[in-house]
């Protein structure tokens, strides 16, 4: 645009000089420069008037700050800061951002890690120093930053700014130790800490507004976790990942979403009446296995005893095993009247107790719609079907899965109990639409036998489609 302007100006100035020169030839101007200045002056102003109407106005600078924030949060924060040299209106638009996301893009990458770390620290420190206004969200996610004194200072600064959402995810060389000022962020509604050391001070009364807590690879004493959880009355979503040898008792009256992953020795859901989603992944070590065998209390009741509103349950490796531990299985009548989706992985169909767990779960879920099971049976161990009458004994003859539409069973090896289970499902699901069976990759010979058996099973649903996926 400037170029075209200068061209047009030069073109018209060419015309002007021609006119001028003719004038000069005719009569002697007394003050040629002055007249030239006047001519140009006049010309400039008329052009300016003209241009103002042709030029499109600058609309974006007048948008309300909330929209500008929406736009600036969609670009990396470094680019957002660079907008300050665009024009006088944009000088401090970046400084009023309330959602801050800092990551490794804030610094140009060099080979020298120390240099990158230094740059990141400089950038974030300067940014926070120049920032103006409240900060609602602060995310720091960097593999270069380890625990450093600057992070403590930043957290102190943020705690004074009433930050609401805090996500800190740092490198794994040396875990960052959360300073006590973290616990004075009163207005926190979401806290995500990854790879850090947490030690709430005794005077900590809890995060009274916290709704979402994610602790992953956090080093914290078990009783402190329980205190933390019980002191957050509004907690709705809890994620605990990679915890070691934990015995946990969760008391959270508003909890709706629970994600657990780690080597838990014992989980008790003491007071979680509103829970609607549970996803558990239990890792087993020798200690925990031993502990299981010695345990007398019924894990199933401890865990799934007080969750009447449960809508979806996902259990990964060893979860069913965990639930199967304990005596008095199946004594307590519980109905999961909202449970729609059940996904259990690595269920061992050789262990009767595990099968009982599964049965108990699905038999007490009247509105179950979707079932996904993956088996972890080992064909080499499977011998004759020992107690096939188990199925007639345990299952009531009149049970019907009224709403079960989709079933997926993976890693099927043809173990007798697996086939019985499939038979059981097919016989009692009148609205079944699809039953998808994926054979285990270890089994190649037994597939034909499996198929022959499958063909024979009676189906209650005329619509049922059985797919056998070979890959």
């Amino acid at each position, binding site marked *: 645009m*400037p170029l075209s302007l200068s061209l047009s100006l030069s073109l018209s100035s*060419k015309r002007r000089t021609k006119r001028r020169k003719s004038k000069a030839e005719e009569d002697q101007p007394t003050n040629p420069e002055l007249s030239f200045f006047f001519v140009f002056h006049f010309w400039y102003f008329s052009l300016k008037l003209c241009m103002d109407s042709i030029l499109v106005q600058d609309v974006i600078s007048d948008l309300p700050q909330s929209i500008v924030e929406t*736009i600036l949060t969609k*670009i990396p924060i470094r680019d957002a800061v*660079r907008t300050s*040299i665009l024009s006088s*209106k944009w000088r401090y638009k970046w400084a009023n951002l309330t959602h801050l996301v800092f990551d490794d893009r804030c610094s140009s990458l060099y080979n020298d890690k120390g240099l990158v770390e230094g*740059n990141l620290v400089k950038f974030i420190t300067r940014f926070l120093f120049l920032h103006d206004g409240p900060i609602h969200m602060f995310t720091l996610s960097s593999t270069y930053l380890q625990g450093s004194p600057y992070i403590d200072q930043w957290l102190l600064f943020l705690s004074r700014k009433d930050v609401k959402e805090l996500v800190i995810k740092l490198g794994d060389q040396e875990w960052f130790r959360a300073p006590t000022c973290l616990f004075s962020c009163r207005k926190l509604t979401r806290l995500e800490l990854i790879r850090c050391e947490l030690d709430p001070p005794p005077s900590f009364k809890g995060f009274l507004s916290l709704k979402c807590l994610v602790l992953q690879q956090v080093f914290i004493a078990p009783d402190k976790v329980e205190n933390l959880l019980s002191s957050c009355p509004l907690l709705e979503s809890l994620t605990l990942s990679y915890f070691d040898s934990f015995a946990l008792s969760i008391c959270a009256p508003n909890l709706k979403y629970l994600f657990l992953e780690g080597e838990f020795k014992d989980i008790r859901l003491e007071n979680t009446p509103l829970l609607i989603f549970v996803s558990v992944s239990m890792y087993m070590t020798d200690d925990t296995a031993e502990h299981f065998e010695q345990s007398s209390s019924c894990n199933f009741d401890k865990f799934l005893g007080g969750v009447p509103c449960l809508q979806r349950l996902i259990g990964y490796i060893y979860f069913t095993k965990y639930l199967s531990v304990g005596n008095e299985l199946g004594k307590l009548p519980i109905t999961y009247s909202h449970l729609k989706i059940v996904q259990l992985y690595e269920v061992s169909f050789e262990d009767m107790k595990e099968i009982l767990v599964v049965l108990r779960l699905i038999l007490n879920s009247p509105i179950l719609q979707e079932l996904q099971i993956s088996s972890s049976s080992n064909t080499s161990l499977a011998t004759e079907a020992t107690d096939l009458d188990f199925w007639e004994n345990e299952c009531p003859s009149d049970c019907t899965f009224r709403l079960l539409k989709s079933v997926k069973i993976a890693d099927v090896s043809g173990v007798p109990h697996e086939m019985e289970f499939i038979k059981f499902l097919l016989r009692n699901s009148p609205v079944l639409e699809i039953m998808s069976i994926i054979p285990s990759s270890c089994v190649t010979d037994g597939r034909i036998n499996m198929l022959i058996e499958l063909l024979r099973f009676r189906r209650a649903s005329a619509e049922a489609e059985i797919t056998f996926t070979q890959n």
Partner: protein
Amino acid sequence: MFFYVTKMKSYIWVQTADGLIQQVEEEVAMFCPMICREVLQMGMGSSKNYAVSLPQRVNPAILGIILDYCRFHQVSGRSNKERKSFDEKFVRLDTKKLCELTSAADSLQLRPLVDLTSRALARMIEGKTPEEIRETFNLPDDLTEEEKLEPLRNITDDPRIRLLNRLYARKRRELREREQIKNVEVEEEHGDERSVDDLLSFINGGNGDSKGVKGTKTKKKSRRRKDQPRGCSSINENGNHKKDSAVGTFSTKLELDDGDIDEELDPAMEEELDREVEDFARRLNCVWPERMQKILTSSQESRRLLPIPINGTGSLKRYTAKFLLLDMPKGTVLFRNLDDQQASLRHFVSTTPWRSEDLVASKSLRV
């Protein structure tokens, strides 16, 4: 006998800020939370008198665009892929429309559309240089060089930022020099004998001694001028204490041969003119009127003569000098206002959009 039954569509009356009342299909309009709330909670929209009054930022043209968006998305049977491709085509608007659309969608609380348009605007900002962004959005470049540099200096080590800093430092220095020249001009309005160049010696005959005294001064000035058009790498930032790079280089530049001054001034001058042409367009709004004022007033005081150091090779200078030497009594005025005239030439030449070719081409020049 077949009866064709058309489904009766229900309409809602809406009124835009300019007073225009129109009907829109109900299901389309209800896609906007704000309209939905007005209809359901306040009972508006049922008739022309009770039209839902839309927020001020929604004008009829933009309303039409928003309704197109709603009409597509309120149909539930569309796949995600279809919706995505529609969205991508939808945001191919010019920036002004896009900004108005964002603003209108925000006032109607249509969050998905706000996100979509914001993302499109963000794409226009991300990764672009400031000039490109200013071009896209017609932003005025109205920050002074100082403001641009502070307080974000060194916030990143991006080479682009460093180059930008250097460019701005260079501009700042030029500004300062012009200030100095202006000051000099004000102070030394009735300056003493200053020698200048070949033209003056030609015109004035035997004033070579005084010229010699001034020669160094002008040479120094032109040397500084020569430095600036050179590439960024040789420029340092005078005011920037933190920069360690090129403080040394500037002082070394001063140690140049006297001999090649005159030859190199010509391209230097031309290059500077070229740059000033571009700067002119930028500075259109702020600086020109006051400068014009100054030039006009000072031109009335003294007859201005704008001699540029000339040598045989510089056609520009010859013609300029010729052009501007019209009707000047030989000798008398030149000396008195030499510096002042030099400065005003620089002023004049640097702030006009005239290219040197124009001056060269003007045939009315005569000595």
